[in-house]
């Protein structure tokens, strides 16, 4: 392992090289983890403000300017609360679950490129790493549900597993699209491949699929049947109190924003903005772009009613999964065809290299792919509309029958 930067400084200062390396890596890890953890404190405020506006309220406005310090007050409140562990709970697992839940989200940030020069770890397998780490979150919720020794918690955990395991399939298939276009699983390479054109224009369908399934992965409305208050009281975290509850809470908030960042990286060009490559500005661009999907997610959360578990499952297995598979297949086929025609920029070895091409060169390819996506959508939307009309007609019929029966 090479020794540069901080490690070099420490070594020159007389520290043991091994120790210096260890310390510098440790410091890097701490830095990367700190960013999301600080972000989440402000995210909670933002989310509460937006939710309040949508619901025609003011939201937090007492503590600090615009209620900015409300979250800190809540934090202190949560810390001061009594920390209860149910007598019949599995102590070790019960206490480990909130940690794991937060860690699973924070670990994703290891592969997030903040700026052109700052990334926790530019893994060769970044996209795969994201999928692998996200599965740890499922595990945390299962452990919480089981260790609480509460039937509502257990039911909530069942629902989570059913939901998360199912929605991981369209998520991964949607993730394949940017990976395929960039020809790499590294997050940095994926961003570089979007220097000329954002992938959202080449594969809008994949972007939408990714957004929907990531919304389900976070377990938010309309997929919040995990903690459906009216049926399960609070779902898997029913027994948790104090800061342990707070950690689940924070993990969920952070997960939503993390998904926004991931969508930005995969489909919205990450920190790219024409001509602006300075670290600080790039970082701000990433954050600003991430707010677009984040805001849409909040908007949906606060306006759409909750779905039933069977509806959610049906939507996934009969709609999202086939659509995502077809999407990947058609895209792969089209890219191969376009490559034969010569509309795809290639490097010397003949491999696809979007990173080297500019906006104009990528335009024909983008148009073809965009149109193909629209063409995939047309019959699907038609079919959905027909299904909706039929269902509504059936319900109407049922209602009139009932009315007539009541009239008799």
């Amino acid at each position: 392992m090479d020794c540069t930067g901080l490690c070099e400084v420490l070594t020159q200062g007389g520290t043991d090289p091994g120790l210096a390396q260890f310390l510098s890596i440790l410091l890097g890890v701490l830095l990367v983890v700190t960013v999301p953890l600080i972000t989440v404190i402000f995210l909670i405020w933002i989310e509460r403000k937006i939710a309040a506006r949508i619901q025609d309220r003011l939201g937090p406005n007492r503590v600090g300017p615009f209620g900015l310090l409300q979250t800190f007050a809540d934090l202190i409140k949560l810390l001061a609360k009594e920390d209860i562990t149910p007598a019949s709970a599995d102590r070790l697992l019960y206490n480990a679950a909130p940690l794991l839940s937060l860690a699973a989200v924070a670990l994703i940030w290891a592969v997030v490129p903040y700026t052109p020069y700052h990334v926790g770890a530019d893994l060769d397998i970044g996209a795969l790493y994201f999928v692998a780490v996200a599965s740890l979150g499922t595990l945390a919720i299962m452990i919480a549900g089981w260790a609480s020794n509460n039937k509502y918690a257990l039911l909530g955990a069942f629902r989570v597993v059913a939901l998360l395991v199912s929605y991981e399939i369209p998520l991964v298939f949607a993730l394949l699209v940017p990976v395929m276009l960039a020809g790499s699983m590294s997050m940095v390479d994926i961003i570089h491949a979007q220097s000329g054109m954002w992938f959202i224009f080449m594969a809008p369908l994949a972007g939408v699929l990714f957004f929907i399934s990531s919304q389900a992965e976070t377990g938010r409305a309309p997929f919040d049947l995990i903690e459906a208050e009216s049926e399960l009281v609070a779902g898997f975290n029913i027994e948790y109190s104090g800061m342990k509850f707070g950690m689940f809470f924070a993990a969920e908030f952070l997960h939503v924003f993390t998904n926004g960042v991931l969508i930005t990286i995969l489909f919205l060009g990450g920190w790219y903005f024409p001509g602006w490559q300075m670290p600080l500005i790039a970082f701000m661009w990433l954050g600003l772009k991430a707010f677009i999907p984040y805001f849409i997610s909040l908007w949906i959360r606060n306006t759409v009613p909750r779905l039933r578990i069977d509806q959610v499952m049906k939507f996934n297995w009969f709609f999202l999964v086939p659509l995502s598979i077809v999407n990947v297949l058609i895209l792969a086929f089209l890219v191969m065809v376009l490559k034969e025609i010569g509309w795809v920029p290639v490097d010397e070895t003949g491999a696809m290299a979007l990173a080297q091409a500019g906006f104009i060169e990528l335009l024909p390819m983008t148009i073809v792919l965009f149109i193909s996506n629209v063409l995939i959508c047309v019959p699907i939307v038609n079919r959905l509309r027909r299904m909706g009309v039929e269902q509504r007609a059936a319900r109407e019929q049922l209602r009139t029958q009932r009315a007539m029966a009541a009239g008799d």
Partner: protein
Amino acid sequence: MFESPTLQTLTDYNIWIALPAIALAFGTMFLLVIDVFLPANRKHWTPILALVGIGISFLINLFTYNPEQTSTFGGMFVADAFTGFLNIVVLITAFISVLLSTDYLRRTETNHGEYYILLLLSATGAMFMVGANDLIVIFIGLELLSIPLYILSAFRVTYTDDRDATFVLKSEESGMKYFILGAFSSAFLVYGSALLFGATGTTNLREIFAAVGPILESSAENSGALLLLIGAALSLVGLGFKIAAVPFHMWTPDVYEGAPTPITAYMSVAAKVGGFAALFRLMIVGLSGLTLDAGVDPAAWQGTIQVIAAVTLILGNFVALSQTNIKRMLAYSSIAHAGYILMAVAAVGSAGLVPDIANTAAQAGLVYLLAYAFTNLGAFAVVLALENNDGTGTELSDFNGLYNSRPMLALAMALFMFSLTGIPLTAGFMGKWLVFSAAVQAGLIPLTIIGVLTSVISAFYYVRVIVNMFLLTEDEGSPAVGETAPVRYAVYASMAGVLIVGIAVPLVTNLVNMVSLV
């Protein structure tokens, strides 16, 4: 970088030599799609299409049957007389099993298209396995052979209202047992393969053979010889489960009894063909040089195989004596027959330094497999004809006086029993004669004596079936509800096979005498 394949590159890779297996795989996938779109009143087309698929693969196999060894996919798949011959055995087995299945499924209310697809998938796995020349392909072929079989064993479970019925529970138990023990044995095989890979640095059997020599010659103390030995032993355990050799045979009677009868017929042959093909390839092509004292001893594993063969023969035959259920009896008999084929394997290993004798022994093993296939399929076809819709009717006493009600079935069963015993003019005799003579040539006199003695013992329980059918004439005999046209064809085909292999010997020996593994 990756180049898009053209017809030219495909022929460069020699893909046509794997065509029989690939064709069957394609046919299966095709059938999977067709079956979905077949309307409910046209479902009888599924087995017919399955038969067509098997037939096409059979024809392709005949056209591509070539005695010289050619390899494809980077040496992972080889086609030689061995592959071609065992492909024929697998395809015949699948064909007869499909014939047996059609009416059986209908009358037991388990008629579902997936059945035939799983059966064909299993046959595909067996075909990939017999051509496998690489540890990875052996393993994947074995899994493709086994996993559909686990499901098919439990196929009678779901589709009946009477969920507590004995045969439902038995089928479930059968599938479960087979699955758990099968998964366990696959783990052994994988562990063994991993150790072989660790010792030699390759998974290709020919390269393993080349690497074994230097390892054995290098400094004796901490060379990889032990790794090789443990790897070979673990692989032997894994394959021993599949062929139901004795210390690993526990699953056989229960699984054979509980599985739907056509599946029992299929599994008793196909699983053995696949297992023995892998055993022959792995032990002879890959590890025949694995000797404890380089160049002098015969291969180190052959002593073990001799012992396993002897124990299998003795235990299989003796326990079969006390069975009252015909399916269990045939299960133990199939264990015993695995012992006879293991004799051939041991003979190849023992004669490893004399290629002529070794090849003769390998050919004897192949002929035995073909003879066993025809005979066992026929015997199970008769059992299936007698079996009632609720799974009863498979006791030995149900055969009493069968000659009165169904003389043709009784005659056929008698022929199969004679063949299993090894009476001259039947296939079983040819198989046993070839195996015994190969074993004698290889110098395995004690093992041959055990083989002959146990054959005599086996006569007792096989002949008992014949006695029941022909001499207990006071019983009026089973109505044989399952004897429908396809089952009858299957019985006739098996009879023809038994007689052809038994009488027209040159036909078969011409096919196999090009087999040379060593």
